[in-house]
């Protein structure tokens, strides 16, 4: 097995895939806590469907490097959804449900009507569940993903304190002059970017797992915002790296392999957390 790994390691694209996969996983874990606690998770879910619709449109127009356009569409929807949630005439959740299911249906419909490639089922499946192999990523995708991931990480570090404030107690932050709506917008945009990034790795149906599992596992074990964030990041990097290696060796789909590993480790964290709590009590 190790020799097989060493053999793969010879190819540069395997290294690139691993690097990109790990970077993307790292980004996705960063905003997990905010997403879980701020009831933004429904936006995350909705956006992943929008991204699917956007991808469908891109593939109809035969745009090969579809990531930039998918990102633009997804970010715009994120902004709209957030506005809608605040105006609250149509209830936030309902608006998200409408847009996300709509995007999913229209995307699939368009693909059926105009799809250029013969392998429709395969295309749809890989957009929903992630590429069967991350090794099929184009060079452009790899560079683009790596760049954006780094940008997301830098933004997160620069705005970490603000994100904490706005997540923990939005009213207090607003009352003492923090521009909470601006940071909410920033959070929504970053989530949109993360979702498009993660789509290549695990597909649009499994993105939530990549975002939420690290945060939930960390919250079982740690109790300050910083330790939860750091643990979630480390957890995410390790499970993603392990998942990618396993999927290369065993030939399993990347996305579901990573999520599978995360389910198992989450269970471990859950048990350790409960035992720890009993001991403390």
């Amino acid at each position: 097995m190790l020799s097989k790994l060493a053999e793969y390691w010879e190819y540069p694209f395997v290294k690139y895939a691993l690097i990109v996969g790990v970077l993307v996983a790292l980004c996705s874990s960063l905003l997990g806590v905010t997403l879980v606690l701020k009831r933004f998770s429904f936006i995350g879910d909705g956006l992943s469907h929008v991204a699917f619709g956007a991808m469908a449109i891109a593939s109809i127009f035969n745009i090969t490097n579809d990531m930039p356009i998918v990102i633009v569409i997804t970010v715009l929807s994120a902004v709209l959804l957030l506005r809608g949630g605040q105006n609250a005439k149509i209830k936030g959740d309902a608006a998200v449900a409408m847009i996300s299911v709509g995007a999913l249906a229209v995307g699939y419909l368009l693909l059926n009507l105009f799809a250029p490639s013969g392998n429709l089922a395969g295309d749809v499946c890989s957009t929903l569940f992630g590429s069967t192999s991350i090794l099929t990523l184009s060079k452009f995708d790899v560079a683009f993903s790596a760049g954006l991931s780094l940008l997301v990480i830098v933004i997160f570090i620069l705005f970490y304190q603000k994100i904490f404030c706005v997540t923990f107690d939005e009213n207090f932050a607003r009352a003492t002059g923090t521009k909470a709506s601006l940071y909410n917008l920033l959070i929504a945009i970053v989530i949109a970017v993360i979702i498009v990034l993660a789509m290549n790795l695990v597909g649009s149906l499994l993105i939530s797992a990549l975002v939420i599992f690290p945060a939930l596992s960390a919250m079982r074990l740690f109790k300050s915002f910083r330790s939860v964030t750091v643990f979630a990041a480390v957890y995410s990097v390790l499970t993603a790296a392990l998942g990618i290696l396993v999927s290369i060796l065993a030939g399993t789909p990347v996305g579901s392999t990573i999520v599978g590993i995360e389910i198992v480790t989450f269970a471990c964290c859950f048990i350790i957390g409960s035992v720890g709590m009993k001991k403390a009590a």
Partner: protein
Amino acid sequence: MAQLICEGLSLGYDGREILHGINFEVNAGDYLCIVGENGSGKSTLMKTILGLQSPLSGTVRTGDGLKQNEIGYLPQQTIVQRDFPASVREIVLSGCQARCGLRPFYNKEEKALAEANMEKMDVLPLANRCYRELSGGQQQRVLLARALCATRKMLLLDEPVSGLDPRVTAEMYALIEKLNREDGITILMISHDIAAALRYATHILHVANNVFFGTKEEYLQSDAGKTFAKEADVNVE
């Protein structure tokens, strides 16, 4: 000039009015208690003062060197915070956020301020503990320390003693009184505890159909004051 001036305020949600005709002024060093029944609009008034929502009509102005974002705030507990992973120190520090502006991290001065306020509120030994595992009284003191990081001039407290036992309640009142007397911090406090309101406050704002505002002595002479104090079974000497 007064620190806070509310003129002709009327409050409500979605255009539906719940309170009108609110006029009052708060000067530096005042201790104003806001009393009134459940649902009469006390929290709404506080949110309006903080700029969290806009009044249906009327104005809220600050003066005497007080800026809108220099008001410390202790909210009525929200449920969102319940399972939030955050240490006491992180929360108290977040009160300094407004001072930071666009700077991404807290500087030495702000960290020292947070330590000093934790010390003052007697929560320094809890600094690394998880907020959600503290008792109600400890949580209130943590949030008060956070509010103190945000202001040196004025504190808005929304039912700071609800859910606390008598001893901790007394401690909390003593802390607030000390902030008012020794540090000269103006206090606006919502309270259902009419006895405490009459004991500590200099001014009373009674929120109801007929809004009353005046000094404590004026309040005790007014009809609203007499009825309310009697209902609450307070001996007014």
